[in-house]
């Protein structure tokens, strides 16, 4: 234990001496949270809509104004020809178009089917799906209005929906993204801080000294990890508090469970870095492996942005190896839903398991290297 502390103290001194690294580890996370938390959102804004009203009847004008007054669309110009529309869509000036063919009004008055065309730019499938939903709802309700007006039928729908949204009633995507950002920043900072530790000594030739030093591998690993755990825990809690102050992230659960989840997660992240460091032969490879193991999966496979349950089964299995996956469920559960350890214990257990496995593997690799 005393030896572990000695290694820790030496490591800590080294960190403090390298000012740029220390500043990056402590302050970059907060800066990132500020920048990205502010910059990123998925809230769907008004869609630039081009209108081609070839009918120009009472009915077609009512439909156009229903689109423009819905709050979802902005008038972006009239469509004259299809080439015109093609160019506008290619250049992203227009994201959707409403085309009402001639005689639509007459068909509606006669009670005949009258299709109108809605064209949506699908390059962002997500926005397109939402816009499609809006468009269908608008056309349906306008159409029902015409039928009621012209036939005097009672078309009150027999089933009404009363939607209620829990945990995030205004559906602010920021509340979804900020916990993800916290996980991402925490993972990257922690992994990077240990990823070069061992391989650096190997490359510089100081590894021989470590090999000869009279300490066992476990104390060495503990000593290498502890100072960084302290630093990254401070910076992680800092960004969590900043998120609450800056982005109105609520705190509905207990601080104790939050601290526990964060600590376990960071331990796993530091272990990942250490493991990479023991496997790689050069710092270049260590850097690359870190990006491949930590940077990209934490971004794409953790449920940060892309819901895991939409992924194909084999990929879902891969995500079980991504610690951020468990941390995000725990973090969102604690801060947004106010759940206790009883609900998320499975995720905490998985985080513990991950940390034990990576730190264990790193120790095994290290003791083999030290011969």
């Amino acid at each position: 234990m005393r030896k572990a502390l000695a290694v820790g103290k030496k490591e800590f001194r080294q960190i403090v001496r390298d000012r740029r690294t220390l500043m990056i580890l402590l302050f970059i996370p907060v800066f990132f949270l500020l920048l990205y938390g502010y910059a990123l959102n998925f809230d769907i804004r008004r869609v630039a809509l081009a209108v081609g009203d070839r009918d120009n009847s009472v009915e077609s004008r009512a439909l156009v104004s229903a689109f423009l007054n819905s709050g979802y669309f902005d008038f972006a110009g009239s469509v004259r020809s299809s080439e015109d529309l093609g160019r506008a869509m290619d250049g992203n000036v227009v994201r959707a178009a409403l085309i009402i063919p001639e005689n639509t009004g007459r068909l509606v008055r006669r009670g005949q089917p009258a299709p109108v065309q809605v064209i949506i730019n699908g390059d962002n499938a997500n926005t397109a799906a939402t816009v499609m939903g809006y468009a269908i709802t608008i056309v349906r309700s306008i159409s029902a209005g015409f039928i009621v007006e012209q036939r005097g039928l009672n078309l009150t729908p027999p089933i009404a929906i009363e939607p209620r949204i829990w945990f995030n009633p205004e559906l602010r995507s920021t509340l979804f993204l900020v916990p993800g950002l916290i996980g991402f920043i925490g993972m990257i900072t922690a992994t990077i801080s240990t990823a070069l530790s061992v391989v650096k000594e190997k490359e510089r030739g100081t590894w021989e000294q470590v090999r000869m030093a009279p300490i066992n591998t476990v104390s060495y690993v503990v000593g290498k990890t502890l100072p960084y755990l302290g630093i990254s825990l401070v910076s992680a809690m800092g960004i969590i508090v900043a998120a609450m102050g800056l982005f109105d992230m609520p705190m509905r659960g207990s601080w104790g469970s939050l601290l526990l989840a964060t600590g376990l997660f960071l331990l796993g992240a530091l272990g990942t870095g250490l493991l990479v460091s023991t496997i790689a032969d050069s710092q270049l490879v260590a850097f690359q492996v870190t990006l491949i193991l930590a940077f990209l999966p934490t971004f794409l496979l953790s449920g940060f942005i892309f819901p895991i349950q939409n992924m194909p089964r084999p990929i879902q299995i891969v995500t079980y190896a991504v610690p951020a996956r468990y941390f995000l469920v725990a973090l969102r559960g604690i801060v947004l839903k106010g759940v206790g350890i009883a609900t998320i214990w499975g995720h905490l257990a998985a985080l513990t398991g991950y940390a034990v496995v990576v730190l264990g593997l790193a120790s095994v690799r290290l003791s083999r290297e030290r011969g």
Partner: protein
Amino acid sequence: MRRLLFMVWKELLELRQDKRMLPIVFVAPILQLVVLGYAATTDVKNVPMVVADADGSSASRELVQTFDASPYFTVASVVRSVNEVAPYLESGHAWMALSIPVGYGELVGAGRPTTVQLIADGTDANSTNIALGYATNLVASYAQDLLAARLPGGRMPAGLTADVRVWFNPQLESKDFMIPGVLALLLIVMTVVLASMGIVREKETGTLEQLNVTPLRRWQLIVGKLLPYGLIGMIDIFLVVGVARFWFRVPLLGSFGLLFALSLVFLLSTLGLGLFVSTISENQQQAMMTATFFFLTPMIYLSGFVFPIENMPAVIQPFTYLIPLRYYLVIVRGIFLKGVGMNVLWPQALALLTWGLAILGLATLRYSKRTA
């Protein structure tokens, strides 16, 4: 020229020496694209639901069946009362709860209006928004069928219908939108890393002095450093475009030649960026942190890869013009999905080229100060 070739040869030998290097630069991009390409989907399908069916009539079961039969929802469990749904939503086992009140079947049978409640977990605001839209349309069209059955003639009077066409991506698959993005991301990750460690590594091991005293000119040294990485990047372009086209079947509507040429321009900017990082860092650890934090992370978040730039606050938007990935994404998506050519893409191509030359120039300047 011969000196330059020697320099390139030396770099290639050095890369080959590291036995983990080659699998990483060639195999990892393929594996990554396959895994991440499947993962990067924002499609909302099979939303897990819990149903609180307090009515338990055949009419309520029919409504539940309607949800379960839709590709967008999966009924995970059925409980008796709305008070029992909270644990499902809290643990995330269900994202949405449908609550059917007592007496629902009777009211619907008598043709009187009734209300069902949809409780959604708003945590994932985006998916919730889409899922609520699907649910609303599902119930509305089910209700319309019920209504139509009671009307004279047994069907709804005809009226306006929306004929929706989605351009560039008719099946509304986010896959086609995301995979070109993942491809660009992988290219950037592979090449920035290589180049950012290039010079600082020699600095750290002390071999930079030796290089400086060789009769190589500065530009030869830099070109010699970057050319091998450029070669690796070129091979990676073929690999990832191949995977996107033939494994994921993302349609490549435009010309491959143009895509390749513009990808090379993109490589110029990523390699230049890496080199720049290498010249401003004291050691490899600093290079790694600088590259990751100040270059790779902003590229992912601010390039429009997943987060639409038009959604960002007006203060942030101008900064996205500084990000080369922004232009390359427009190029890749344009060539893949829209089949557009140089007549549309020239501003992006020009921006990338300017960016690449500027950063390379900057890196060369920094390098010379160091050796002078």
